[in-house]
């Protein structure tokens, strides 16, 4: 894995076979290497129509692409998934272009889809031209040069120490990456256990005759959101347990609403078992 990454690091400079950049694809894409994804292939095909990109026939382009992919899929050779997804989409587009428009506000019409594809192609081509123009400029250190022996007037800066954003991000990323290779240690965490909740509920229940919010039963030492959450769920669990034993009743008026609990009265023990299974235990 490390070797692979190192190789790709170099590739960034050496204008690599673009499809290979995605690990895993390299073995599959035999006929399509040299193309940087379906959009790149489409752009190359579109150029073969030898007209302004604004005037290409999207229908014809879809045909060309589908024919190309059909040939690329010789027996035993697989074509990368994204090329097939594009093929499926273009087949759909073709049908939309050839059939009358559906009267449906929610579905884009064939021409709209075609316009979007044409837009994407023109935008990609525009960016490629822009990139070529950019790299063809007179560049510092290649075409134009600064003074070779500066004598040292520098812009006075407020800070004496220098560090770039890149260094900062790199340092943090390196640090995270180093952590990962360390032995895995699972931090012990203090949580409120069911046993403790059960015990506490048993103890405090006698003092509370009426309906009380579940939170009132929480122990006073609850601190921190994680601990709090564990205490709430342990308390609910203990409450349900005791409801099953017929010792408490639970009630919740609405979803995510507050949960209430009270001691079960002894006289109505038989009837209350059903009640306890009602809203609270659901």
């Amino acid at each position: 894995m490390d070797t692979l990454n190192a190789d790709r690091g170099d590739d960034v400079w050496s204008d690599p076979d673009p499809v290979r950049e995605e690990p895993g694809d390299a073995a599959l894409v035999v006929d399509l290497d040299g193309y940087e994804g379906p959009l790149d292939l489409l752009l190359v095909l579109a150029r073969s129509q030898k007209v302004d990109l604004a005037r290409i026939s999207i229908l014809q382009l879809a045909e060309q692409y589908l024919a190309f992919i059909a040939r690329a899929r010789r027996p035993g050779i697989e074509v990368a998934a994204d090329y097939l997804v594009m093929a499926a989409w273009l087949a759909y587009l073709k049908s939309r272009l050839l059939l009358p428009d559906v009267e449906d506000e929610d579905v884009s019409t064939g021409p709209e889809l075609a316009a979007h594809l044409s837009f994407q192609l023109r935008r990609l081509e525009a960016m490629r031209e822009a990139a070529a123009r950019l790299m063809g400029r007179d560049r510092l250190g290649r075409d134009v040069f600064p003074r070779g022996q500066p004598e040292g007037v520098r812009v006075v800066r407020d800070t004496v120490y220098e560090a770039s954003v890149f260094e900062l991000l790199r340092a943090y990323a390196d640090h995270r990456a180093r952590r990962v290779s360390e032995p895995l240690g699972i931090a012990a965490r203090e949580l409120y256990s069911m046993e403790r909740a059960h015990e506490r509920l048993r103890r405090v229940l006698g003092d509370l005759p009426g309906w009380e919010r579940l939170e009132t039963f929480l122990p006073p030492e609850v601190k921190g959101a994680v601990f709090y959450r564990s205490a709430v769920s342990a308390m609910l669990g203990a409450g349900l347990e005791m409801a099953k034993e017929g010792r408490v009743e639970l009630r919740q008026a609405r979803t995510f609403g507050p949960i209430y609990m009270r001691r079960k009265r002894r006289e109505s023990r038989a009837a209350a078992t059903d009640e306890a299974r009602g809203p609270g235990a659901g």
Partner: protein
Amino acid sequence: MSVDPRHLRMVEALLFAAAEPLDESSLAARLPEDVDVPAALDALREAYSGRGVHLVRVAGKWALRTAPDLKFLLREETRETRRLSRAAVETLAIIAYHQPVTRAEIEEVRGVGASRGTLDLLLEIGWIRPKGRRRTPGRPVTYGTTDEFLAHFGFDAIDELPGLDELGASGLLQPRPPSAMIEEARARAARESEDGDGPPGGAEISEFPRPVE
């Protein structure tokens, strides 16, 4: 209005000695108070035009640079700079023209996932930097170009990017096609479905076009 020649040679000396481009306030801070810095810079730029060294403005600052037409003399003495991959060059152009732009938007324009290491490389060269966050779900980081980018490619400001206005006017820097483009496509589709009972069939593609290397 003519500039005092003594002031001119002071500005000249400072710019020659400087290791990096100087802005007007840094120049003014080092010069006697009575020096009209903008006027002196203008006069100096004039004096150097046509010479082997030019006074240029990069990223809002002033610097002396060898004349571009003399690159044939100077190129050989530099090590062959390593060539950036097509992916890196395109990514740089997209960031320059669409900034601030998120990684997902770059991928959308290129039609492929950004390979790991491309942004990393551009960050390391110092041509791009994180600019902020997009106010959309997930608040993704946006990227833009740096002053070093401007200095390297010899721009005074980012709006000097070649073709920027035309691209902006054509709607190609927008995330969606402009409505004019959709109308056009609609008209063409109408024409095509009229005269084409037989779509032009894929058979004529005898030679597969190869991508430009």
